[in-house]
């Protein structure tokens, strides 16, 4: 009888990359649905488009690189990128803007670096930042609260139909973070900004729901052990503390911690973007520092930067710090002295 001579270990667990990726996609479902309910069906159309673009580009890139295209393209990682782009850009973004974001995410940020596992930067955030700085007028098309456009109207926007500025003004409005930034610039106080129940106050309430849905999906991922607690905990704690300090210093011109934590992409970023293992630090202490760094940079950019939400920039900046973090946060090996 001939026996195999394979090496130990002979047992393998059932975890797989595609299972992990699919769990993440599943966990994005709540925030996707709540966003569609609040911001309109445009986001679903965008999500379908972005996912199609991303998977197609992934397959194309793999093919050009001579790798098995189909199986890898369907491993779920391209879908995550697509969904994150769709959640990051406004629901009324023209299709070609989304396509540019997907192109930069999948081809430039991911495959030019070597594909899944080798990308230095978070692909979705690279794609989003490229369109954010390139097409600012399109990336401002956030629907006004309580007037989410219907499917037909959304399709017209996404189809790239030209609209006169009156239509655009009627149907869109600044996000809470944006309007707070603008109005603070106009020397209004937080109390005044939040006074109008149909303005910032209402928009903030909507975004709280979206953030809560992202938080719920994130907690489920934690429970499933697909992600670990270090990055989101460090990021949210750091942000929360900075908001608390600034709010305690002068509540007239600073957001309450709850507003900061439940606005913009905070929760989505904490649980779905910053936790992308490929572009994050990989040691436990490194992840704590990485998360804290994102929280701090996000706060700094929101407060002093030109953009209302600094999450994408914060993540990309911390991506650059990852090799350093990994290098200096090695755990102490068993049997070797402390320190």
């Amino acid at each position, binding site marked *: 009888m001939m*026996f*195999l001579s*394979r090496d130990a270990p002979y*047992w393998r667990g059932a975890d797989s990359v595609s299972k992990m990726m699919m769990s993440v996609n599943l966990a994005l479902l709540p925030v996707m649905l709540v966003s569609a309910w609040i911001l309109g069906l445009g986001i679903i159309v965008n999500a379908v488009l972005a996912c199609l673009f991303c998977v197609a580009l992934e397959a194309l890139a793999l093919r050009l690189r001579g790798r098995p295209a189909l199986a890898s393209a369907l491993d779920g990682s391209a879908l995550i990128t697509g969904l994150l782009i769709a959640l990051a850009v406004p629901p009324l973004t023209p299709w070609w803007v989304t396509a540019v974001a997907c192109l930069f995410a999948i081809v430039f940020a991911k495959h030019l670096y070597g594909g899944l596992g080798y990308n230095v930067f978070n692909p979705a955030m690279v794609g989003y930042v490229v369109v954010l700085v390139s097409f600012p007028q399109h990336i401002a098309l956030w629907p006004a609260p309580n007037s989410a456009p219907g499917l037909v109207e959304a399709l017209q926007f996404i189809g790239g139909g030209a609209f006169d500025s009156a239509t655009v003004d009627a149907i869109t409005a600044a996000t809470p973070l944006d309007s707070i930034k603008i109005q603070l610039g106009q020397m209004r106080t937080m109390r005044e900004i939040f006074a109008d129940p149909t303005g910032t106050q209402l928009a903030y309430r909507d975004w709280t729901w979206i953030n809560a849905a992202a938080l719920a999906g994130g907690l489920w991922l934690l429970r499933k052990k697909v992600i670990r607690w270090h990055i989101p905990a460090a990021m949210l704690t750091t942000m929360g503390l900075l908001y608390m300090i600034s709010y305690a210093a002068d509540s007239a011109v600073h957001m309450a911690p709850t507003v900061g934590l439940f606005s913009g992409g905070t929760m989505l970023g904490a649980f779905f973007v910053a936790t992308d293992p490929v572009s994050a630090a*990989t040691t*436990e202490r490194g992840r704590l520092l990485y998360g804290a760094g994102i929280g701090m940079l996000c706060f700094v950019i929101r407060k002093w930067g030109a953009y209302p939400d600094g999450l994408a920039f914060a993540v990309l900046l911390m991506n650059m710090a990852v090799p350093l973090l990994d290098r200096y946060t090695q755990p102490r*090996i068993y*049997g070797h002295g402390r320190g």
Partner: protein
Amino acid sequence: MPLSELNPPTPKWGIRFDRPNLKTGLPLQPLMPAGQYIVPLVQKDGSAAEPLLAPGATVLKGQPLVALPTGDQGAAIHAPTSGRVSAIEQHSVPGSGMQRCIFIEADGADQAWSGITPVRNPLDDSPASLLDAIAAAGIVGLGGAMFPTATKLDPGSRIHTLVLNGVECEPRINCDDGLIRDRAGEILAGGQIMLHILGAERCIVAVKADTEVAIECLRAALAELNDARFTLALVPPVYPAGGERQLLQILTGQEIPAGGLPRDIGCICQNVATASAVQRFMHTGEPLTSRIVTITGSGVANAINVEARLGTPIRQLIEFAGGYTTDAVQLIMGGPMMGLPIADDSAPLTKATNCIYVHAQQESAPPSAELACIRCGDCATVCPVALAPQLLLNAQRGDDFEALQDLGLADCIECGCCDYVCPSNIELTSRFRRAKHAEREIEFERLRAATAEERFVARTKRLEREADERRAQSEATDAAGNQAEALQRLLERIAKNDDRQKRE
């Protein structure tokens, strides 16, 4: 007196397997000593012991087959049964490749040799004479390390704690469980002898917290023994908690310094089977000629524990367990996480064989393609020595030996936990094993180059010196004008030089 029990905390590392254990039960009684036995002469350090007998000689069960080795790594070897030495030749030995072995044709009488007398009251005897007796009995660490027990029990430094390790290191290995259920009293008595030899104050008997029957057996035996030095520790069933270093960390909270031994923290670990063998020898004068081994895995009909004579061909053990299933594909010595592949089932049972694991096709993971590492860090979470396999992998791929060293490659215990959790199917342990080999080779080359350089420098200096001497001497002889004498001296020097070169 209430039993003293410990419930150490669950370690942060390791794996809790969700695969149910196969029931193996009590050790089945010895296989009949018929047929051929193959006794390897290889010792722990890889050297082969010199046989005392030539082919054709008759032997009795328990008769020494080799002169008692003097080295620290050697152990006595005895005939597993009575019969005739049929050959002394090379044969495959699990985990050691081809080795010189003594082949014994059993005569079926299983007649015992009367050359060894039992030690009547070991606890009244001097530690030194007990150590000699243990060495003569050929007792080695039966957990799989095969380190001579007499050497380990003579650490040369103060030991306060003896740990009797009944926490089987790997999943599916149940031989210690079977032994505890059958002979808890014998294990504890062996522990008392070891405590006496070491002069240690306490003995921790460690078992897996999920082996209820074994725990009850130990509780009963401890109550009967009524020795305040003994503590029962229920160790969380996490792999690889049974590894010596990991077990001591769980029990004492202390780590063995890198490159050190348990004695550096005042502890010594002995397998429960080793303790039982010590007591058995003292009590009956029976040297180590059998051991309990688990035969298990999806490729064998029944999972069993069997007490078998050393030297029994593995094929016979498999047959005793009902034979292979039709889809058996791999034979492994040890468990499914760290076992060594066995190429040939005519290889014998050795003192180190705690388990024979047979893998079936469907359980043996298909060689699914390795995907890229996504740096999830799950491997670092489970690593019992707190390495970062995801970073080691990068260094290994780049053959960056400096980085590998910095990241602690040498500390890797090759437990396979990282492989088990890796979602990308990366064969991390294999890679690290290969990297260790490559690193050793590089170190060897470096040493060789250094020695060669040293020799070259020395030789150049010597040649220069000799040339100087020659010049000085020829000047002197020229001055004396004695050509004949100079020629004579020159010839002598040349002869001397030739001689020296030959010696070198």
